[in-house]
């Protein structure tokens, strides 16, 4: 047998698993069932009867639930097929989801989070029975304090956006105590920070003031000076922003806000390239958050569960949600004392956050140590700048701002030239990338950078992986000039073809559930 020629790095023969799998309701077979449920013992039913006759008439379910009736193996097969039709980071070279830090999540961490000593804990158990998980939470708090320079971490926020919301809540509580909550009604952010940096403070009633970039892509300091005033409650910013540009003048920004009596909150969703290199405290921030599912490798789970670990300096501590985890030298305990004051934000998420995600972050930190975290940042930045250099060598790829300088852990590129010359858009490239088993993300709306492409390699891919991704992009860019139709009509090798989204904004046509679909499209 002839040895396969692997010199071409593009996976031209890729095809994603396509199962033509029916919608689950279509698989229902009358009488089938997936599991037998434990019944009440005869002695119980002899004593209390059927249990449900006690229900008041108006509170009894009168109709049979319209759930599918399926044997267990059919349910398993259905969902396993759907999983095969999902291109998680475990199965593809995940470089394409910029701003999200999709890195390798070690399997051992997941296995440890599933053992009954973790999974079968009730959050209200007596403290003496949960010393293990409290120790994990306490020590992870200490590690994150060290990574950020903050004085205290809460694990309650269930994701980065709730971390931003927590920061906005802390800011509100801080000024409420000072009686300035009505006066300080503005939060300043930048257009290249995550949408949640604007949206979450808006939930707390704040007016949002945007700073646009200067010609170099740094937040415009002159515009910033004009925006900061005694109305400023806080400045929320990601650094680097989603463009991958690091604001080297960040200290000037945070100092100015403090001079006007405002607070500074650091969106550290993009922290991966800075671990052990620089910290929130030294950059002048009063608070910050980390996405444990991003920077600290607890996997993304299709969008959670996650933790938006939020850290604060001492002067913000008493506003944190309760409880915090502490150690008295002998035992770990839930501390309500620090936050037991009328100005605490009280509670953000139920119980004490997503403990098993904290456990995974703990395991990740312990498997890397301080030197490993530093290496993560350095390799992530190295990988990014390698990718950046290789892509910028292509005539149809550009990246606005700081020409010739390094980016941190990601870059927002523009394919404007490619689009102008070929009519192939970034959305077309995105779909075509799928034909080679690759994921690719454009950016959040609105597109401040035209035809955007946002790539973030992290420390995970090897040089060979990066080269494969680059070669695949080059292959498609070449197609855009030679055979644009194949790109525009992509994907061809995916589970489904070009989706008609024309009904998605039309109340007559949208269908969020099978029930709605059947009603509208009989």
């Amino acid at each position, binding site marked *: 047998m002839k040895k396969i020629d692997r010199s071409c790095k593009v996976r031209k023969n890729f095809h994603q698993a396509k199962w033509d799998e029916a919608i689950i309701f279509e698989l229902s077979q009358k009488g089938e069932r997936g599991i037998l449920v434990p019944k009440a013992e005869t002695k119980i039913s002899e004593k209390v009867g059927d249990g449900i006759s006690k*229900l008041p008439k108006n509170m009894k379910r009168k109709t049979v639930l319209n*759930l599918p009736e399926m044997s267990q193996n059919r349910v398993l097969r259905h969902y396993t097929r759907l999983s095969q039709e999902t291109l998680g980071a475990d199965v593809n070279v995940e470089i394409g989801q910029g701003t999200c830090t999709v890195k390798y999540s070690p399997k051992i961490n997941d296995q440890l989070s599933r053992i009954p000593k973790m999974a079968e804990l009730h959050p209200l158990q007596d403290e003496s029975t949960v010393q293990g998980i409290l120790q994990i939470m306490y020590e992870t708090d200490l590690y994150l304090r060290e990574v950020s320079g903050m004085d205290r971490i809460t694990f309650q926020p269930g*994701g980065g956006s709730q971390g931003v919301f927590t920061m906005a809540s802390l800011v509100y509580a801080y000024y409420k105590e000072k009686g300035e909550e009505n006066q300080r009604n503005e939060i300043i952010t930048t257009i290249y920070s995550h949408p949640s940096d604007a949206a979450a403070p808006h939930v707390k009633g704040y007016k949002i003031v945007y700073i646009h970039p200067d010609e170099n892509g740094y937040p415009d300091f002159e515009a910033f000076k004009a925006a900061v005033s005694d109305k400023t409650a806080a400045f929320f910013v990601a650094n680097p922003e989603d463009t991958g540009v690091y604001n080297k003048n960040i200290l000037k920004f945070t100092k100015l806000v403090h001079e006007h009596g405002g607070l500074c909150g650091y969106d550290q969703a993009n922290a991966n390239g800075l671990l052990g290199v620089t910290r929130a405290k030294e950059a002048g921030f009063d608070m910050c958050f980390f996405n444990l599912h991003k920077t600290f490798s607890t996997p993304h789970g299709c969008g959670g569960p996650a933790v938006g670990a939020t850290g604060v300096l001492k002067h913000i501590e008493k506003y944190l949600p309760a409880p915090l985890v502490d150690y008295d030298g002998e035992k770990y305990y839930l501390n309500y004392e620090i936050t037991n004051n009328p100005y605490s934000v009280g509670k953000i998420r139920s119980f004490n956050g997503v403990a098993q995600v904290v456990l995974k972050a703990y395991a990740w930190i312990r498997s890397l140590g301080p030197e490993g975290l530093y290496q993560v940042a350095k390799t992530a930045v190295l990988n990014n700048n390698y990718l950046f250099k290789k892509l910028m060598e292509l005539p149809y790829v550009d990246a606005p701002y700081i020409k010739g300088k390094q980016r941190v852990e990601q870059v927002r590129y523009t394919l404007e030239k490619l689009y102008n010359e070929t009519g192939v858009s970034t959305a077309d490239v995105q779909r075509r990338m799928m034909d080679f088993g690759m994921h690719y993300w454009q950016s959040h709306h609105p597109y401040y950078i035209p035809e955007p492409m946002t790539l973030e390699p992290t420390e995970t891919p090897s040089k060979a992986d990066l080269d494969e991704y680059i070669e695949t992009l080059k292959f498609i860019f070449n197609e855009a000039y030679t055979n644009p139709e194949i790109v525009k009509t992509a994907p061809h090798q995916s589970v489904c073809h070009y989706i*008609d989204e024309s009904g998605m904004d039309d109340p007559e046509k949208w269908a969020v559930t099978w029930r709605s679909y059947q009603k509208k499209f009989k």
Partner: protein
Amino acid sequence: MTIRGFKNHPYIPNSVPEIEDEMLKEIGLNSIEELHEDVPDEIKLKENLNFPEALGSEYELKRHIEGILNKNKNCLENLNFLGAGCWQHYVPAICDEINGRGEFLTAYGGEPYNDFGRFQALFEYQSLVAELVDMEVVNVPTMDWTQAAATAISMASRVVGKKQVLVPRLMDREKLMAIKNYCEPVLEIVEVDYDKKTGCMCMDDLKKKISDKTAAVYFENPSYLGFIEVNGHKISDIAHELGALSVVGVDPISLGVIAPPPSYGANIVCGDLQPLGVHMNYGGGQSGFMATMDEEKYVMEFPSRLFGIASTNVEGEYGFGDVAYDRTSFGNYRENGKEYVGTQSALWGITAGVYLATMGPKGMEEVGQTIMQKSQYAVRRLNELDNINGSYFDSVFFKEFVVDFSKTGKSVKEVNKALLEKGIFGGKDLSEDFPELGQCALYCVTEVHTKTDIDKLITALEEIVL
């Protein structure tokens, strides 16, 4: 300066020195120290972070963490009667199997073209929960019930254009705290008193407090303390008469036997998915949902993503996409966002879908009935004990009930301490949250409890209180 970095680390392929050098050369640098040129020296760390060195191997990591976790005593080794927002139900093996699939576990923000299965699984989750609550629109999961309730209340406020919300006095105090924080300073939250005998919402107080300023009345069924709010219909009617909405929080595992909220007038339904195939995880298994009918005025007020079904340009295929994407903070509504879109708890949504499909209509009906029988049995047995009142409130309940120890001369704290010594986790102490109830505890009995388990509790309590 200390030499930093960790070469040849198994999670970092390009930490191999030769490859690192080759790549550095490619970008014109000599060492990794030369990266981060824009980070000013004055804020650069000069030394390594100060915490323990890396553990030497995966094996050592496993031993180390298992050693710490072994200090925990869990609800399998002990007999657990705690509920109060996180419940011990049986998790079918198939839920863990699907939940642990690497493709779902490590997927994130892909498009339907690469994450087709994620979209379909979440669309199906939405569809299955819609059947359970008898609604037509369900969102991709939120953080937890607490957030779902806060979001549902805010949605209601936007739909009717009013700023005051009524909630029951007997609700989870921590959930109320979170809702208040979420709503402050935009919405006003007012508590409605309860009927001392039944625990249900006091109709007179409701009528007194509701006005044309009220946006919504929020209540739960089963309530936080387990009793069934029998006046659901009356509450909804009173709300509707004054132009307010009825928002109902619900434990989804009850809906195989209990009437779905729209049957008693609910406009928005919310709740937690944790009972549907998710382990307790020390409170990390929570995941919220919201549901409404398919009416534009409601759909446009959802702040979360809604995955809808669509056609593709090839007949015989379904595709998926975001319904009314622009309404979200990911669309064009950043600073006017109704809330924030970000990572929440999608994997639990997929898991809940697996659970509902596995249980089917029969399973959901049976589990509801079993829970009712077993919890009623527990109360009957508790009532046989002198000085213990098995159910403080005179209402039908589901799964949870308030046990009154006031007459025993012992505090709940003392009782629970003694129970713990016998390997039993007693119910949540309510004496701080609701001091007017005296020494009461919230007990939870589900399908996982056997007659022997319940009898063991009774024997233990007999020994403790007599």
